[in-house]
């Protein structure tokens, strides 16, 4: 690690004071004069034709100002990757919860009352909930008959070959083809095949999703978003409403937790349409139940994995067939997660023969979308469970088997990408030292103890864009404008640290105005753990640009060359001669408008994979081009106690070791790692959005439990370790890792449960019921 004064230090969070005093503003806190409140009448059917809508009684209700149906709003489509969504249902509903009629009223109560008076007649259509049915070439229901006519919404990739002409509900078919899979199985000493499944999960941020839209007299709009990806959302919605982009301003107050849910922009357009229609400010706050239906869920995965290995544990062949059961519209589901989960399967092990197919499909279930990890934790559950199963069958040490197969620096992974900055071995070593897996814990009575671990990675996707600007003036001091989005992960602090490091000041000396497209430079936003690398590099470039200008100007004044100068504490001085100096604030006057402006844009060329094979062009790979920005690596270790009478699983102790390249703010990194462990325990053991015919039966915190203080082990039994391996292109060697913080937990728990009681649970969550059932089956077999 370099000799730095600000980066790499646990500088206090710049947002903490506002947050502990209740002054931090979230979208839900925005109040505007004359604001109307929105409620939405939603489809009770998973799939139905709308026959008629009668809102005449509701329109007469006192306080009701506007009622919109699909006929009153633009019928063109929008989306995160494929444009398959409409603002309000256009004749057909494809999931329970889909918005059908929206009401704006002077009070929330009036809007709620109005919903009761609206009569919608539906004709139910056959519905399909099973993702395996949906993926077939002859599905019982085709959910979007016009799918092949829809536009792609993203510059990430064109849909074209990602669609599958034979499978009408598949909105993304991603493939990896490497070597010869059948030959690989033939050459293997052991071939094993298993199916793993993961549940639907809700992100459960504490904040409720909110849209606030204010129409301006000149026809422009201001959007307050409790979402990430503010800039791309602004672009997409100005297009949707046929407004020039500069007529739409987006403002992002603090976001009360994201975890990927912000990748659905589900209902902001309703508020926009209402504001345009009424000319009044509009506020739309989701209820917690609406969060479950319309803020997205983690997509349930069905993973068939078939591995071929040599006797010594060398992986020879891996075949994976992955089905992602999305909802009635694609959201991020199929666009990104179905593709990107494959990179989660790519970043850790060397495998010469691979055939991977992942299918993102529509069903008539509520929408599902991106979730912390974008598919990596899910595929890791299958892979890392399987690694233990293979090792056991071969009679070899599962740790050594992993070690043997982990990619080395410079080796090609299963997509042909050249491995760089891989801390997997180091992460694994730290976990082994802590877990001591070879020492079997002593069980007590009905509580049988066991240990488990997993190692995996999380890619940060590419390409991406980020710009930043540093302004130094006598009046305002140093202002840093960046578009990294603070959703709780601490990016505002880290970005300020980077500028502070380069300009030789402390973080307190830097102002970071809230994100607002009227002054914030473009940034793709908070997803795929990308901000550390992309926004961080942009901020570094902008700060270096400002520094260069400062030193050049100061050099010409002091009569020395810029490289003889040092910058510290708002002073520029000649190295070794602190008396020969000039104040930064005095320098400002020598620049146009009294302002030093440093600009930075992070631009990097990436390769695109071949859609038929998922492979990078080997020539480009040899030139150093990559498919992904970077890979964070992680290992998890856990010790559990399993009650053989009830099936209950208790987490006794848990640890993570993470490779984030360079911890720009170690305490902030700990925060991400600890949060990842907590979330992983919930997802591993009990979280599941339960569905019955497309209806969520537990859309609240009473029936859908997330971990409380009680489900976590004591602080003494929770350990976070770092194993950073610097990335050559990361800012100060750093790479994003906060999704990796979650990845691996489910598999580590499953492996520990097996270690404790000898039952292999292949579908998460690992509930007491499942464990007990498996224990009984095992007993029965004896």
């Amino acid at each position: 690690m370099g000799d730095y004064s600000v980066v790499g230090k646990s500088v206090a969070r710049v947002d903490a004071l506002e947050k502990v005093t209740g002054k931090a503003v979230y979208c839900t806190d925005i109040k505007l004069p004359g604001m109307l409140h929105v409620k939405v009448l939603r489809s009770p059917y998973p799939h139905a034709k709308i026959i008629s809508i009668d809102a005449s009684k509701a329109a007469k209700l006192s306080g009701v100002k506007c009622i919109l149906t699909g006929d009153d709003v633009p019928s063109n489509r929008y989306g995160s990757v494929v444009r398959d969504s409409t603002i309000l249902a256009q004749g057909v509903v494809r999931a329970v919860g889909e918005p059908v009629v929206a009401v704006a009223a002077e009070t929330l109560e009036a809007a709620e009352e109005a919903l009761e008076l609206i009569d919608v007649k539906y004709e139910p259509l056959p519905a399909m909930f099973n993702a395996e049915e949906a993926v077939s070439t002859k599905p019982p229901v085709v959910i979007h008959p016009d799918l092949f006519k829809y536009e792609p919404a993203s510059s990430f990739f064109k849909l074209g070959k990602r669609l599958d002409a034979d499978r009408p509900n598949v909105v993304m078919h991603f493939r990896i083809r490497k070597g010869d899979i059948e030959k690989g199985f033939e050459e293997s000493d052991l071939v094993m095949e298993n199916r793993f499944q993961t549940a639907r999960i809700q992100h459960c941020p504490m904040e409720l999703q909110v849209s606030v839209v204010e129409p301006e007299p000149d026809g422009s709009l201001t959007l307050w978003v409790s979402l990430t990806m503010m800039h791309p959302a602004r672009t997409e919605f100005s297009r949707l409403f046929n407004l020039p982009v500069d007529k739409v301003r987006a403002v992002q107050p603090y976001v009360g937790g994201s975890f990927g849910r912000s990748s659905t922009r589900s209902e902001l357009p309703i508020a926009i349409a209402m504001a345009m229609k009424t000319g009044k400010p509009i506020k739309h706050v989701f209820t917690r139940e609406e969060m479950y239906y319309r803020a997205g869920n983690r997509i349930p995965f069905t993973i068939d994995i078939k591995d071929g290995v040599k006797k010594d544990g060398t992986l020879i062949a891996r075949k994976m067939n992955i089905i992602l059961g999305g909802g009635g519209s694609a959201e991020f589901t199929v666009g990104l997660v179905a593709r990107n989960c494959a990179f989660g399967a790519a970043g850790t092990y060397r495998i010469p023969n691979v055939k991977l197919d992942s299918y993102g499909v529509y069903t008539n279930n509520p929408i599902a979308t991106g979730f912390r990890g974008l598919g990596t934790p899910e595929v890791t559950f299958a892979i890392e469970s399987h690694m233990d199963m293979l090792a056991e069958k071969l009679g070899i040490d599962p740790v050594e088997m992993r070690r043997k197969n982990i990619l080395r620096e410079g080796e090609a992974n299963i997509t042909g990408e050249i491995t760089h900055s891989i801390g997997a071995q180091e992460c694994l070593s730290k976990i082994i030292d802590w877990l001591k897996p070879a020492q079997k814990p002593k069980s007590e009575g009905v509580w049988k103890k066991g240990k488990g671990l997993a190692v995996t990675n999380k890619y940060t996707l590419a390409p991406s864009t980020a710009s930043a600007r540093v302004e130094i003036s006598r009046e305002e001091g140093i202002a840093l404008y960046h578009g990294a989005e603070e959703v709780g992960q601490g990016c505002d602090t880290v970005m300020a640290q980077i500028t502070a490091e380069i300009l030789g000041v402390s973080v307190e000396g830097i102002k970071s105005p809230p994100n607002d497209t009227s002054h914030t430079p473009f940034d793709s936003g908070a997803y795929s753990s990308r901000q550390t690398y992309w926004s961080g590099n942009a901020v570094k470039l902008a700060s270096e640009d400002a520094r260069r200008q400062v030193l050049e100007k100061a050099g010409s004044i002091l009569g020395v060359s810029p490289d003889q100068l040092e910058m510290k504490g708002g002073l520029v001085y000649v190295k070794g001669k602190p008396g020969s100096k000039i104040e930064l604030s005095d320098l400002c006057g020598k620049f146009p408008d009294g302002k030093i402006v440093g600009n930075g844009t992070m631009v990097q060329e990436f390769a695109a994979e071949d859609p038929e094979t998922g492979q990078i062009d080997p020539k480009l790979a040899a030139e150093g081009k990559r498919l992904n920005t970077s890979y964070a690596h992680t290992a998890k270790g856990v010790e559990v106690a399993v009650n053989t009478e009830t099936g209950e699983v208790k987490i006794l102790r848990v640890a993570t070791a993470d490779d984030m390249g360079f911890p720009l703010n170690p305490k902030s990194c700990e925060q991400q790692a600890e949060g990842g462990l907590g979330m992983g325990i919930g997802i591993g053991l009990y979280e599941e959005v339960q569905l019955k015919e497309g209806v969520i039966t537990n859309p609240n915190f009473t029936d859908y439990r997330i971990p409380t203080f009680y489900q976590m082990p004591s602080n003494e039994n929770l350990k976070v370790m770092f194993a950073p391996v610097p990335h050559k292109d990361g800012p100060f060697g750093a790479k994003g890792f906060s999704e990796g913080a979650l990845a691996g937990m489910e598999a580590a728990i499953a492996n520990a449960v097996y270690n404790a009681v000898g039952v292999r649970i292949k579908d998460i969550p690992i509930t007491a019921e499942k464990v007990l059932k498996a224990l009984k089956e095992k007993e029965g077999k004896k």
Partner: protein
Amino acid sequence: MSQKIKFKVNGVMEEVNVEPGWSLAYVLREVLNLMGTKVGCETGNCGTCTVLVDGKAIKSCLFLAVKAKGKEIVTIEGLKGKQGGLHPLQEAFMDHFAVQCGYCTPGMILAAKALLDENPNPTEEDVRRGLSGNLCRCTGYVKIVEAVLAAKEMTGR
């Protein structure tokens, strides 16, 4: 029928016309503009709306505003240290990195305040039990526990 009630909020006597169905959270946020109190579920599960009513931690989304009549309420805006300034819990939450997205923070700090007032010397187990009605999705609770245990030392001084 709306009812005029008087109660003290952060040391100031307020008089508010309250509808029978209004929650205290609604009155604090929508009538008195005290936006530091958050709302996360409206079913009493998440605890983001926690405020102090006569010193006890109450989930204000389930507490009818009319019941606040004559009571003394403290919200995050009214939390102060003995010398004014920040309360030790607020300082500890900052120092120990117990804050991430911050949405649960006001409720969490007030729940912790009620806990420390009742039990000035809690163990880690006591803190976990005492705060188990407040949810946080970001932190895994590790640093919140640390902060509350550290604040116990600071308040004891």
